[in-house]
């Protein structure tokens, strides 16, 4: 129970921590060129976490009703929708960030970027948080499992949050160029992962056709191993992904790569973030 609890909570927490860290790094890199208001710098994180936790609690409370929707695939559809909405907001952000940076009058765009980031983190917390609440709430209710599940949950959450904190400080203490490059690479993987997960869920719900698997790496790195779970959280690793999943994963990466964030911000960000 303990180890299962650690793995589940760690997997969900590290996914959310990675996302929040990368978005905070972007906020940090561009805050000087956006604006100095408190709204942009920190309050979006607090707001998204608060609303996300509330949303996760509501989601787990209404899970039985949600599951029965759409011919008993409501949960898959809702999770896929949350993934797709997050992907849409990540793409919007990738297009908004450089515009905000290049234009002089940036307040409106900066607010829009903060709105996008709030949405991305909020949806992520609703998704991951509801799974944690359902698992911990369901198992910790049994007296003999309470200690291992809660202890495992804390250990998993501790490792996840610590990784996020160290990643954030590690990235912002790099040179602005490297910080930007690595964050962008991580954003690409996050976007790809979101798309891939949405496809997997829609396929499970029979809303998308099954496509042949692209490869089978289950013998080299099984999905249910600890490393497999961590790789899933970090890069959305699947041992047997379908061709459609791989295509959408790559599409997510391509969307970020073709965005102005990748093209326009690259040569100019030195002068802007150099001041940060």
């Amino acid at each position, binding site marked *: *129970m*303990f*180890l299962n609890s*650690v793995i589940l909570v760690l997997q969900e927490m590290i996914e959310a921590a990675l996302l929040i860290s990368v978005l905070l790094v972007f906020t940090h890199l561009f805050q000087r060129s956006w604006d100095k208001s408190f709204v942009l710098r920190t309050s979006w994180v607090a707001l998204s976490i608060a609303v996300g936790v509330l949303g996760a609690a509501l989601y787990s409370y209404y899970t039985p009703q949600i599951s029965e929707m759409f011919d008993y695939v409501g949960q898959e559809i809702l999770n896929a929708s949350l993934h797709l909405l997050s992907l849409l907001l990540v793409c919007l952000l990738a297009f908004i960030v450089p515009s905000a940076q290049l234009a002089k009058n940036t307040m409106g765009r900066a607010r829009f970027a903060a709105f996008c980031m709030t949405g991305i983190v909020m949806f992520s917390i609703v998704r991951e948080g509801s799974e944690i609440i359902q698992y911990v709430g369901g198992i910790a209710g049994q007296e*003999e499992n309470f*200690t*291992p599940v809660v*202890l495992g949950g*804390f*250990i998993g959450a*501790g*490792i996840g*949050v*610590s*990784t996020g*904190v*160290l990643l954030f*400080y590690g990235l*912002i203490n790099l040179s602005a160029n490297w910080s930007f490059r690595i964050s962008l690479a991580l954003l690409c993987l996050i976007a790809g992962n979101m798309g891939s997960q949405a496809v997997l869920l829609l396929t499970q719900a029979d809303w998308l056709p099954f496509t042949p698997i692209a490869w089978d790496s289950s013998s080299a790195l099984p999905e249910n191993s600890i490393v497999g779970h961590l790789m899933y959280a970090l890069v959305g690793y699947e041992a047997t992904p379908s061709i459609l999943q791989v295509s959408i994963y790559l599409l997510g990466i391509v969307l970020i790569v073709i965005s102005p964030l990748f093209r326009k911000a690259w040569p100019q960000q030195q002068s802007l973030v150099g001041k940060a």
Partner: protein
Amino acid sequence: MRSIRLFLISSILATLILFNFVAALQGYQSSMREADTLFDNQMLDLARLVSNLDVSSASSKDLRLGNNLSFQIWNESRLIAASHNAPVEPLQSFVPGFEYANFDGYRWRTFTRYEVPLDRWVIVAERTDLRFVLAENVVLQSILPLLLGIPIVGLLIWIIVSHGLRPLQQLSSALRNKGANDLSPILSADSRIELDQVIESINGFIQRLDRVMEREKRFSADAAHELRTPMSALKVQLHNLSEEIDTKHESFHQLQEGVDRMQHLIEQLLSLYRATPEQFAKNCETIDLYGITQDQLASLYPSFEEKEQSIELIGDSIEIEADKFALETLISNLLGNANKYTQRGGNIVVSVEDLGSEVCLRVEDNGPGIADAEKSRVFDRFYRVDSNDGAARAPGCGLGLTIVSHVADLHQARVEVKDSSFASGSAFCIYFKKKS
């Protein structure tokens, strides 16, 4: 803006948590493996014990071991003894060693042993779920203190980091508390190697600043003195000229206005110079704010009379600690400003009000007023508010309110620009600390 304290506390705590928790996971896994071996050894002992059981006695045929354990003794495919919870079929195939089996609705760890002298097969079994829970509970007891210690470790890190940053805070507050005209070097009694270099650089900077200020002070004093003398001579020459030529000529008026403006500018520059913190030597004394305002009003009254403006002074005697000369400069500038920027026939109200811990000197008029966007700029040097009623033509150089602001700062007083209580116009409020 990034906080060093937050960075240190968060990153140290995160590193500690990460490494401790990963180590705890590693410890958990190896402890569970050890516990598994321990339970297996117990089963070996149990099998040895059971194999020597006297199966002839009736009691031993239905031995109660507890719900987590079970055994069977077989002799040539015949069950000769078993625990109460054992099935009648063999628990495991007759192959010596450890294995797993499912019966009674649970998964069991089994050990099979062949006892050669007695020609018996002994199979002992232990419920995996119960031995796992037992092992986990023991292992988790060692992890629990690690988790409970995190808040204490966090608190300790916070205290240590705060203590470590104290010299930096002390340096910061020493710099913040330095008076505007205090250019003495910073002395650090409790110095640190890392901060010595910073303090040395700051002291070097202060020294250079002191030298530059001294040079500027000498230059300003000399320039003011040099300018004042020829200006007085120019005024005398102009007066003499007015008696010799036709003074109705437009050029003469313009010349006279130009000289007046220049004289005003020199006087204001001198006032500003005297009101700067570096030059100002505050000679504080107890002054009746109402009385000094009344005196200034009396001396400037002809200007108000000339523009047919009505001026009213409201209030009572209230004492404050101030420098008399500086305070006179402040009041005359405020009154002069009201006189200049209020239209002919306008109203001006001056009040001295006791607000408890503060005393408010308020000068308000029904002039054109100041737009909100300009209110913050009126104290800038040489800034003049645009006026449509010709007030801008009045002698002025945009230094009056800068002087007011400087003098207020020197007395730790607040200056506020508000809308007047008239239908139009502005109100300047200076809040002085009341004499304790």
